[in-house]
């Protein structure tokens, strides 16, 4: 059964009623449990659990140190192309925005790679808008062929692919997939994706499953916080991660909790998600999935990111740039404004000062080895 079918169990579920029934005593019991059910996870996302954030934080910290150690894996995004045929109303790259469209040439990819590689990073996340005409799988594969000369782990954050296309990119050297459902609520999803192939909710939500079947090593899912009520969105993200881990135990599963940032077009978040809400989400997820990764991007400001290091984060971006070719001479509009502009070495310095080790390399591209 796919996750899409699996989540229909909650089709008519009364989340508000559930949250209203949760009392503090129940949260206390859940926090000390060794193994949390999905109902426990939902309870930790309730308003009642807000009074127990410190207790949750202590356990989350302990679990994270136990399973991941005092280390944070660093990576950086590399935007290859901003051509896009969708009009997601919350995105700076959407088709109706009049921005200069750009796709990196092989020489430009090499130049960006050299600049990133000079920082010592070995993990890179490549991104494109959705345009099978301008950034087809063959283009992405060609970029991967260049990038694997510089990096030992290449993840993709692109439009959803067919299983055979994931296989093609994996054989070229891709080992990780990031794909956000953006919003798990199907009605809201239809509202914020009024046109384009991205309207196909099911094709997107089942993309991680196709990637896992194709042999992807790591998969990162998420909801874009700000599009809908965060508690239920966080719940479905956790369920999605849990489903993937159950179905594909060999895959490293992680989540991202990205919050909406200002961008060209000026769409305002439909729902405010405070720092406190974000922290509650991270802690609840850590208690629910002690070995699940949590990725924190530069959407969050430096001061908050410094605190999140000890609250369950396992992977952070550094030296980020959301514009195509933004690291070299060429400059274009970014997908969104970043909040933490620190360089890789500044991030490393911050981590060391907190008693954490910045990890630059945590995967080895496996060539044929013959």
């Amino acid at each position, binding site marked *: 059964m796919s996750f899409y079918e699996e989540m229909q169990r909650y089709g008519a579920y009364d989340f508000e009623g559930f949250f209203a029934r949760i009392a503090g005593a129940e949260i206390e019991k859940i926090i000390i449990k060794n193994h949390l059910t999905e109902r426990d996870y939902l309870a930790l996302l309730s308003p009642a659990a807000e009074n127990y954030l410190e207790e949750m934080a202590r356990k989350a910290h302990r679990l994270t140190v136990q399973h991941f*150690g005092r280390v944070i894996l660093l990576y950086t995004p590399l935007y290859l192309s901003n051509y896009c045929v969708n009009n997601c109303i919350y995105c700076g790259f959407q088709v109706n925005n009049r921005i200069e469209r750009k796709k990196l040439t092989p020489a430009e990819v090499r130049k960006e790679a050299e600049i990133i590689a000079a920082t010592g990073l070995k993990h890179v996340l490549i991104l494109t808008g959705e345009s099978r005409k301008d950034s087809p799988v063959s283009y992405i594969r060609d970029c991967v062929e260049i990038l694997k000369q510089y990096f030992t782990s290449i993840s993709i954050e692109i439009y959803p692919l067919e299983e055979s296309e994931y296989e093609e990119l994996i054989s070229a050297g891709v080992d990780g997939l990031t794909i956000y459902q953006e919003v798990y609520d199907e009605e809201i999803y239809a509202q914020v994706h009024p046109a384009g192939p991205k309207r196909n909710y099911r094709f997107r939500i089942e993309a991680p499953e196709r990637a896992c079947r194709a042999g992807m090593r790591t998969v990162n899912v998420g909801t874009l916080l700000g599009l809908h009520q965060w508690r239920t969105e966080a719940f479905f993200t956790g369920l999605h991660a849990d489903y993937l881990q159950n179905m594909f135990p*060999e895959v490293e599963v992680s989540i991202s909790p990205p919050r909406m940032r200002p961008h060209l077009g000026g769409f305002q978040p439909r729902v405010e998600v405070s720092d406190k809400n974000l922290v509650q989400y991270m802690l609840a997820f850590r208690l629910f999935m002690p070995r699940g990764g949590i990725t924190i991007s530069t959407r969050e400001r430096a001061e908050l990111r410094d605190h999140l290091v000890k609250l369950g984060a396992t992977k952070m971006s550094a030296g980020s740039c959301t514009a195509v070719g933004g690291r070299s001479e060429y400059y274009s509009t970014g997908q969104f404004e970043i909040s933490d502009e620190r360089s890789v070495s500044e991030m490393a310095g911050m981590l*060391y000062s907190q008693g954490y080790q910045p990890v630059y390399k945590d995967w080895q591209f496996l060539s044929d080895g013959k």
Partner: protein
Amino acid sequence: MSDILKIGDRELTSRLFLGTGKFSSNKLIPDVVKASGAQVVTVALRRVDLEYEEENIAAFVPKDCILMPNTSGARNAQEAVRIARLAKAAGCGNWVKIEVITDNRYLLPDNYETIKATEILAAEGFVVLPYMSPDLMVAKKLVDAGAAAIMPLGSPIGSNRGLKTKELVRILVEEIPLPIIVDAGIGRPSEAAEAMEMGVAAVLVNTAIATAGNPVAMARAFGMAVEAGRTAYLSGPGEILDIARASSPLTGFLRDS
């Protein structure tokens, strides 16, 4: 009395092996190794970065130690074999700890794939130390496959739960003619001592040291515990009885006559 642990063609005097993951800084590693007295240190090849000396975890392992790359991240025998070959090509020597894990929830090893990888790599001349779930039949197959030692888990990696597999490990100690090294799950020095007392050849510790408040001091404690446990084993501990046996028996005089 010399008490040498022979693995491959190397002779070891320390029976504590160390892992290098999870430390807050690689700079701790030399001090931890020194305090523990360890002579074998394992490093995940996925973390080895020959191009970035400053952050290259392997560069922090003292040169007089045996560097034992491990295949962390391998999901099947084929990937483990590739990682081992890459490690050798990168100059990490010919020792390898096979780690094939297809379960990210508990990080339990896949014994079947581990046997396959062991067979291939041993035939290529590697000194192979396979990490496995303790199982007598699997251990025998690993012996046949050419393993240099067998590394059963005490409890799941990083769990610090101690020697939960004690009875199964005890059977391996009795039946398998290779060094048995308890790898994973040892959370406290007393548990390392317990394993050594029952006759395992060595223990491998990582999380319990790396995540301790003072890793260097904890490394020293583990070194001492392993030595104490080994000495106790060699000295032949008294048997455990159901009834009391007085040190000066009341009826001793009957036998004296």
